[in-house]
């Protein structure tokens, strides 16, 4: 935690306490469902262009936290801003500036990739010619060829996930939230998926990603590890390994998530 704060200060040229030059800032963000505290006073910040890994066991509160940051769920208390907009009062402004790929598959299976692009792109206000270029670009990028005319449900899962990621970025958002984007995907496709993430990051986009795969955690610039609604550790993967005396992020994770 302290480690992170110093890190934050060195990068800062903030104008106010919420740090509007940061992509994401969270201060004591909390979500309670009745008596159950799903997310417990989490504080962190994510720099622009950073790949931030949001780790945690099942039920640790990752998805709840992400849903608050994407404007899908109203927090109980705390403060947070995404792309400079408040998660309490400016959810719709946030939505215009972020891309989101949910845990559940989000493309329409009974539409073709082109029709999905037309729909989602259309909602973000892309023009007809823009939509056309995007479609042909995507078909070319993933060498879909004739598969571009197929319905999404007839495509292999790996392709589907990469297409979903691309569609989530159709409107060129500054920040992209990915909720377990590589779940159930084979290692080769996962590798290709991370190439896409790096590509987006190199374009200056901020990536906020949750994952269960600890090898993927190593690809992140910084990670946080959530246990029972709390952020237990945060920092660069190598620093964390050093701090907890482990060889891999996997060991760090196990040590934190299952303390003896």
């Amino acid at each position, binding site marked *: 935690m302290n480690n992170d704060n110093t890190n934050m200060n060195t990068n800062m040229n903030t104008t106010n306490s919420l740090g509007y030059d940061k992509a994401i800032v969270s201060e004591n963000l909390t979500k309670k469902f009745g008596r159950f505290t799903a997310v417990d006073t989490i504080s962190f910040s994510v720099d622009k262009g950073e790949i931030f890994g949001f780790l945690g066991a099942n039920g640790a509160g990752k998805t709840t936290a992400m849903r608050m940051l994407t404007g899908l769920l109203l927090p109980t208390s705390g403060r947070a801003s995404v792309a400079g907009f408040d998660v309490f009062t400016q959810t719709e402004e946030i*939505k215009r500036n972020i891309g989101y790929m949910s845990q559940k598959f*989000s493309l329409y299976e009974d539409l073709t990739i082109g029709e999905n692009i037309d729909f989602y792109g259309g909602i973000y206000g892309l023009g007809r010619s823009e939509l056309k270029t995007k479609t042909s670009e995507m078909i070319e990028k993933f060498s879909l060829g004739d598969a571009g005319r197929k319905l999404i449900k007839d495509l292999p899962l790996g392709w589907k996930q990469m297409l979903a990621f691309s569609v989530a970025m159709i409107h060129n958002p500054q920040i992209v939230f990915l909720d377990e984007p590589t779940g159930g995907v084979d290692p080769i496709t996962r590798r290709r998926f991370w190439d896409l993430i790096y590509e987006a990051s190199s374009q200056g986009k901020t990536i906020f990603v949750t994952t269960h795969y600890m090898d993927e955690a190593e690809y992140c610039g910084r990670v946080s590890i959530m246990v029972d609604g709390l952020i237990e550790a945060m920092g660069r993967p190598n620093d964390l390994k050093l701090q907890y005396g482990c060889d891999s992020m996997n060991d760090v994770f196990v040590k934190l998530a299952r303390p003896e």
Partner: protein
Amino acid sequence: MRNIRHIVKKEFTQLRRNKQMLQIIIVLPLIQLLILVNATTFELKDVTMIVSDLDKSATSGRLVERFTASGYFIITGSTESAEHAAKGIDSSKAKMILIIPNGFERDIYGKLSPDVQLIINAEDGSAAGLIQSYASAIIMDFNQSIVRKIMRIPEPEINQGIEIRDRYWYNEELDYKFYMAPGILAILVTIIGLFLASMSIVREKEIGTIEQLNVTPIRKHEFIIGKLLPFWIIGLAELAFGLIIIKLLYDVPFEGSILLLFGMAALYLIVVLTIGLLISTTSETQQQSMFIAWFIMVIFLLMSGLFTPIDSMPGWAQVLAVLNPIAHFVEILRRILLKGAGPSEVQAQFFILLAYAVVTTFLSTWRYRKVSG
């Protein structure tokens, strides 16, 4: 506005891909209008009866003749034994027994009032009610002619004319199908609208796309209009399709303005669709919303006045019937199609539906949230 267009386009594309749904939309009205209109008839035909004429006079003979001459009754037996007659009903040989007591003729001309007994099999209550009312009509009619005969009054043409026409109107002049067809059509439009709308949002919930949509800057009203507009169009198309069928098959008269009819249907569909939407936003799975939609549909249907007259329901049920949009729509369709009602005659229904639409639209849009609590 552009967003609405994008959603409508997407919905229609999805619908086009959904072959089963397309079949339902086209086959359902055909089956309903072919089967239900013909089957759901309260027309009385060939009611079997046993005559127990204990009087065996000329007068009692004329009364029996009235029954056979009416065309609604067939005499399947005659007996003097009450026991035999009762067996006829037990063995389903007859639906009704007519007992004319000894001294019938004597009493009539002796200025006493003789009794005639009707025994009706009431296993099917509504059929029994119909048989009873037809039979009493025949007896009353007979009674009047006897009274006039005794009192030597010439047949008062106008007075009697009204009486008789009123009684036989439904069957001789007005085909029962004319009465049923608009009602079935109303059900049809309701089923299609309610079920399509009740599936709409919950389907997106199940496949997970709702999250993706909620995270887009799409406006709430755009989403709802975009979602419901296709079903609204389908509902009106379905009505047009149904109207063509009932015109071609049953030659139902279109007395009133078709434009007025569609105008009212347009309003009615808003009510139905927003109820469906409300179901959809409150449900978590398609099964759940299907079940609720069925539950509501059955109550609406049985209390629509289509199968049992609203007037004969208990007071509290009549109050509930006022809240039943189907009842109003059935009434509107009948009034416009059969009676040629103009705008002023469906005004009351219009305002009820309008109030309904305002409430259900408010509730369903309020219930749908892009940001949950």
